[in-house]
């Protein structure tokens, strides 16, 4: 019984050291790309700038949560405990931003 529980709880499969290092490399490369994009005036002025940065940030966020926080390999309950509040938080954030976008400055 204890062994089963331990298996269900903690003895789940984890990424290997090699995978961890690849994840770190990708995170670094995406961060470099983000900062690089910031220094290209033509790109900053374009409509693609904000969506591109948001997508790159979301990819980094997801990679850390899936691999470093092991959510990809962990129990479904942990996934629900994290993604449930996260979805509510993101929806609230978007709602507030759109709601106040129409309030005049000053």
């Amino acid at each position: 019984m204890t062994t089963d529980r331990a298996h269900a709880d903690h003895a789940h499969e984890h990424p290997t050291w090699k995978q961890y290092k690849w994840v770190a490399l990708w995170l670094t490369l995406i961060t470099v790309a983000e900062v690089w994009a910031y220094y290209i005036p033509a790109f900053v002025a374009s409509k693609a700038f904000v969506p591109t940065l948001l997508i790159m940030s979301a990819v980094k966020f997801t990679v850390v949560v899936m691999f470093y926080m092991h959510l990809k390999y962990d129990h479904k309950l942990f996934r629900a405990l994290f993604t449930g509040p996260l979805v509510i938080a993101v929806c609230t954030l978007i709602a507030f931003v759109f709601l106040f976008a129409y309030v005049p400055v000053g």
Partner: protein
Amino acid sequence: MASAAATASGAHEAHEHHHYTTTGLDHRKIAIWAFIGSECMLFASLISTYLVYKGRSVVGPFPHEAWTSPAGQVFKPILDIPVTSASTFVLLMSSLFMVLALAAVEGKGKPGYEGVLGSSKFWLLATALAGVTFLGFQAYEFTSFVHEGLTIRTNLFGTSFFTLTGFHGTHVAVGVLWLMTLLFIDMKRGLGPRDAIIVDICALYWHFVDVVWIAIFTLVYLIK
């Protein structure tokens, strides 16, 4: 009698060492995920406040634009992207060190976990030092902002910026204290595979602090 006492003692020991809920999952891990879920909402409220007030400051200094005060004093854009990029890199690397610390604790005594690379002490110390370095960058940034004329009371940008990044910095500081506590335990009695859960919980908190910074770095520093 002796047998009953031994059984009671064994049950007590089992109760002490196995913190399982009816789901079969460790309640400490469920608790940390529930806590992280609530923290998502806290940081979403702080980021929302920052975004709602973005571009609504009546007086400077501003994050990305230069500003000339009515007295003729010129203020350059206040955010220092190269410095913040360096601190972001340090925090990302701290997450790598943290997973290597957890792997070292889980794999202690197994083949392939010998030497410095398999030393949980080394990786816990590296993570804590990276956290302290990040806090040093933040202290430098806050100090330079104050010297350049931006305080928490200057304008809406200053208020929302210092509140958001200050809350995040406090979380990093708590994480560093937590890591130092684990390092102390490791040095005193050693951390092994049966302690993996306490390192895992700290690691989850630390990675959460990292993902919050990933969002802050893009939304506050990079998006103009």
